């Protein structure tokens, strides 16, 4: 149950920027009290943007409650890595994100936005492997595709910079879903 709610939460985080972009496009300001009315428009924009960032932080904290997993080096003393191939995926989300932004910029009415947002939300949720949240990049997380020595590909969110498959040692993973894992082992 927790897992299901957590995935919904992650989906919300990674799609919420659409709403931010829409609010900025529509120049919707926060109804400030009279004393604060001197604040320029972009203060509201920054606050809009900080909401998903904050939620992303929360999602990282909550990820400690997920089921553990590991991809540590072999326990037999030789310390052979279980990873055969590593592929950076930071840029893979850009096309879909640009798509989100263009949608948000060209949607004329609020009702249309709600409809489009729900559709995107559903598709992102069911696409499973794509919990791409570019806000993770701001908090210094990177995205990688890893292929294990048993030839199974997984998606990993980690703070480590992974380059040589031989050196990869990930003893503290959390399972978001069967294809997506997040590394809690630091840098």
């Amino acid at each position, binding site marked *: 149950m927790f897992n299901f709610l957590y995935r919904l939460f992650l989906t919300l985080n990674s799609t919420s920027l659409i709403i931010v972009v829409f609010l900025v496009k529509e120049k919707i300001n926060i109804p400030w009290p009279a004393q604060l009315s001197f604040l320029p428009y972009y203060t509201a924009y920054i606050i809009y943007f900080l909401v998903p960032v904050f939620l992303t932080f929360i999602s990282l904290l909550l990820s400690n409650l997920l089921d553990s*997993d*590991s991809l540590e080096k072999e326990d037999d003393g030789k310390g052979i890595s279980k990873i055969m191939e590593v592929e950076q995926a930071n840029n893979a989300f850009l096309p879909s994100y640009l798509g989100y932004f263009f949608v948000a910029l060209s949607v004329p009415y609020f009702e249309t936005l709600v409809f489009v947002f729900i559709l995107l939300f559903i598709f992102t949720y069911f696409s499973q492997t794509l919990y791409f949240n570019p806000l993770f990049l701001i908090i210094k997380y990177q995205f990688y595709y890893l292929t*294990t020595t048993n030839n199974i590909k997984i998606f990993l969110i980690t703070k480590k910079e992974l380059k040589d498959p031989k050196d990869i040692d990930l003893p503290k993973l959390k399972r978001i879903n*069967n294809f997506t894992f997040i590394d809690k082992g630091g840098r």
Partner: protein
Amino acid sequence: MNHLVVKTKGRDGKIFKVFSDKQVYELPTDLDNPKPYNSDYKLEDDEWFYIPEFSKTSFCIDFLKKKFISTDYAQMSDVKIENLHYLCSYQTGVYFFQNVTPSLIIRKKWFKFTDSPVLEDNAPIITINDRADAIYIKSTDTLYFKKLAAITTIFKGIIELYKEATQAETEDFLKSSFIHIENDYDSSKVKTANRKRIALAMETFKNFSATQKKTIFEYIKEYCKALPFDAKKMMFTITGEEDLKDLLWGIEQRYYTTPIGNEKMVANSVSKID
């Protein structure tokens, strides 16, 4: 890190991850003096059977041949409890197997005995035995087990080790020159226990020279007074299962005399002293 996985039944049975970071089984401390499998040998409480170079045997499963990578397995969900085949706990290079038998599944109502108990109905639980049915240590490539019958469904074909003479072998054995059958006893009446002994005895007997055979017959005659022996024809008369058992034990040289008290004994189980 430790991981518990389950395998589901059937030809397309899959492996699912249950949970991680928990130590389910303790590594027994008495694995240092294992015995090679012999169906006739009765293990002491602190003894295990073992199969060295297990990955090279035909009954080793693919799951043990490849590296254990927990992220390769999907999280268990929607698996019916009656579909479970076995549990395997991977604990830093050691695999603990436990067959899931109906007796391990509890379908009664239950509640956790804590400050806030909740009655659970229709929530079957699986109990975990103190001792795993089989233990595989990857670094030494050795499988340890206590009861072969418990693991025959996990490792297909391992039952071969449980050697039992076939009908033809039993017939052949009973036709041996040193056996005379009476009282309507025939190969169809030989039960499993004796068939296993025949399989073993045939191996032993094959390697005896003529003089050794003579020695063995004398030895059997000495200990089995109840077993009729014709010294001229060199023939034992077998009238039933008991007689056959006595003879087979004799071939395995299970009889001995105590140095003190001079009592004649039979060894229920034997193993070589290295």
